[in-house]
């Protein structure tokens, strides 16, 4: 097939494969903990990370990972301070991220920065360097989820009970927040900042409708996400559409289909 003769498309598929696995893995826990908003917040901060990296001239992927990681740990502290109103700290951080991104983008005007690509995703902009970073960090995220799977399940189900039983919830929560941050910074390259959290939330929400236990929820969500990302990359290449938009549109179609079949 012609599509596989282009190096940039192969890079896009490799990056897509990793992103399509880590996003729903993280997304399941976010959705079930009612924290999906944090994905949105961090993606706005990621935009500021991209703008900042471009401005000071460092690799945007590395710059974004570092910036989002640092701000996520800040938000985690804010969230504890406003324990009962975590949406306040989230909203403040979202607006803060947007404002900062706007300022930094306007400062870096003139440098050829593809804002649309960062907002809605891009297939051509994935560099070999990105692939190395995405693969390395992606494997770490998958490994950590695998190793901490039962603890994350328990904390998600009942944080207090997990704490009493002796599970180190603060350490695991901090690690989890870091994984969310990394996943967002990585996924942004293909899906775009405005749609990364959709790839975390929608496949997980679809899986919820049909799963009979937690393991199935995770398996289905990854399956739906992989299908959406791969078919989305194909379609966006042949029809020349925004990859992020196409991927998310497909995942929503799958969600609707599952809901219609389930209702009958």
């Amino acid at each position, binding site marked *: 097939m012609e599509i596989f003769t282009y190096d940039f498309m192969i890079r896009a598929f490799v990056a897509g494969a990793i992103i399509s696995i880590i996003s729903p893995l993280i997304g399941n826990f976010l959705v079930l903990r009612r924290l999906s908003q944090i994905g949105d917040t961090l993606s706005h901060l990621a935009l500021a990370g991209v703008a900042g990296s471009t401005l000071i001239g460092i690799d945007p992927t590395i710059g974004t990972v570092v910036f989002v990681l640092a701000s996520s740990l800040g938000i985690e502290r804010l969230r504890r301070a406003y324990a009962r109103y975590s949406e306040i700290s989230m909203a403040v951080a979202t607006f803060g991220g947007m404002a900062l991104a706007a300022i930094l983008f306007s400062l870096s005007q003139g440098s050829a920065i593809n804002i649309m690509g960062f907002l809605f995703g891009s297939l051509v902009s994935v560099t070999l360097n990105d692939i190395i970073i995405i693969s390395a960090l992606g494997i770490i995220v998958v490994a950590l989820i695998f190793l901490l799977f039962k603890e994350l399940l328990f904390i998600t189900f*009942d944080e*207090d009970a997990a704490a009493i039983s002796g599970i180190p919830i603060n350490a695991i929560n901090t690690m989890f927040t870091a994984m969310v941050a990394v996943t967002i910074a990585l996924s942004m390259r293909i899906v775009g900042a405005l749609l990364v959290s959709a790839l975390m939330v929608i496949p997980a929400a679809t899986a919820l409708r049909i799963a009979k*236990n937690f393991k199935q929820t995770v398996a289905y969500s990854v399956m739906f996400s992989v299908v959406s990302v791969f078919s989305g990359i194909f379609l966006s290449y042949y029809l020349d559409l925004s990859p992020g938009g196409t991927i998310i549109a497909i995942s929503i179609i799958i969600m609707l289909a599952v809901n219609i079949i389930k209702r009958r």
Partner: protein
Amino acid sequence: MENAIEVSGVTFAYGEKTILDNISLTIGQGEFVAIIGPNGSGKSTLINIMVGILKPNSGSVRIAWNNIGYLPQRSFAFNQAFPADVKEVVSMGLYAKVGLFRRLKKSDWEKVYDTLKLVDMLDYKDELIGHLSGGQQQRVFIAKALVSDPQILFLDEPTVGVDAKSQQALLDLLEKLNKERGITVVMVTHDVWAITDKVSRIICMGNGHIYPECSLDNMDTRMLSELYGYPVKLESHVHRS
């Protein structure tokens, strides 16, 4: 006999409101203790301090082991749409024991099934937790508290929402665990008459204090009326069994 639990001089307040006022008590190993008292008297607060969810403003709690089982009040007030099945929920009771980074072994799952059988819920092991009735969920949570073979079991109103037959079965089970395995049981309950022939001691709470004169021997109408602040009648289910 060494003590299982020692509470000394514990005071706890929410803001200005003192909930527990300088409470001291000891519970010996192998005791089966019931805590009774009116709504809002601080029973759950005391349990939460004993298991370590709440930190007292002053005073201290000492527990002889760290393997404890805990069934919180309204334990079924969780996200009813959570996609976990019954066996997954019960298995959570084993996670801390299994340890970080490890997976459950076959013998762990057998333990889960044995415990489900103990509470008569084995047939439901593959059901989503949210698809069970409130009483069935309560039995699953009891299994989760029991599955790690705790040396001390804290139960906050375990029989609420459980039907009469299962309630009796649960009390019999607790009695058996207490007698045969020597597990220390601390249970909050409002169903005073159902437990008088099972427990070894009763602790009465009211107004942030423990009533020292309240004991199994003088559990009578006058005592209870004073504790609950209204005339409690003794009739009906005394000496059912």
